[in-house]
């Protein structure tokens, strides 16, 4: 009995040590989570989910903190995933880790994209050309679908104003050669006046 108790105590101590060693942040490990999320996942949602899983599992951040950062990243200009990386990096290691995380999140996928683009540009195979003809149609499909998905959450608070604004912008941009920067700035001002959350 004593022997089994001693074994159990040793096991518990070892288990606790293992858990504690997971919980203690190291200098390099958080960045590895960003690297893994950036390289192994296609699309922002999958990368964000991977990063959330890693950081929560390692007890670095609470799930609700990551969710709050994700919500903020949705309303910041630019790529949402990189905005999320910046916020989480800043929370984990200040500005140095924020910059490193954004650099990792941009440079690694960009390298893959440039390599694929170069292979495509220098390829003379008719097989690649046929693949790209289909992929172009798929790309436009994803683009149009993404436009609808982007619009849908905005219809919740002020649906009629949102539909009216979208229809107006669609009409104006289709019919007139107006600067898109002007359209976006005017829409931002209109939103500040009429689309405030209640």
């Amino acid at each position: 009995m004593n022997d089994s108790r001693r074994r159990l105590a040793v096991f518990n101590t070892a288990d606790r040590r293992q858990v504690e060693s997971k919980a203690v942040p190291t200098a390099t490990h958080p960045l590895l989570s960003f690297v893994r999320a950036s390289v192994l996942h296609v699309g922002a949602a999958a990368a964000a989910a991977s990063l959330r899983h890693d950081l929560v599992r390692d007890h670095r951040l609470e799930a609700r903190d990551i969710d709050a950062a994700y919500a903020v990243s949705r309303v910041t200009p630019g790529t949402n995933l990189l905005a999320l990386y910046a916020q989480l990096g800043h929370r984990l290691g200040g500005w140095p880790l924020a910059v490193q995380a954004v650099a990792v999140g941009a440079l690694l996928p960009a390298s893959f994209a440039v390599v694929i683009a170069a292979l495509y540009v220098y390829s003379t195979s008719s097989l690649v050309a046929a693949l790209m003809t289909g992929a172009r149609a798929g790309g436009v499909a994803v683009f149009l679908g993404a436009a609808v998905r982007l619009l849908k959450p905005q219809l919740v608070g002020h649906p009629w104003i949102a539909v009216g604004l979208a229809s107006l912008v669609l009409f104006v941009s289709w019919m007139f050669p107006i600067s898109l920067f002007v359209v976006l700035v005017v829409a931002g001002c209109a939103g500040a006046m009429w689309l405030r959350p209640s």
Partner: protein
Amino acid sequence: MTALALYWLFLRAVLLSFSGLATVPILHEALVIDHAMLTDAQLNDAIAISQASPGPLGMYVVVVGYFVAGIPGAVAGVLALMTPALLAVPIARLLLRGHSAALQGACSGIVIAASALMMTTGLRLAPQASPTALHLCIVLVGAAVVALTNIKPVWIIAAAAGTGLFLR
């Protein structure tokens, strides 16, 4: 166009967008219509290539930069994506202080306008991307699938590329 000018163009586009592909209308206007440095086909290619590689959808900007100015253009694209991301930290602080109602409203307005502009650009790009009726079907069905389901875009691209191979 120099890499610096390209960076400035990309940065302005990214700063006024709240989604990866929302920059497409601005870059289409500047690079395809105004400067004729890029074709509709290349823009479509860039979107398709970016969706077949890891990372966010906005990474197509890097491929556009590569098509326009080679590696320096791609670097300009990467830097333009990185710069606004660091604004997220001060914006988060601002939102958490409670001065957010007007800011959130402005963001909503820009997102709505961006989605409408994306539809306009998508409708303009569609004829080039659909030389046959079957390609047009791919565009319509694929758009509906992306809009209404949670299927990942990479599968749409893969299926569309496979169909292109079949139609050869």
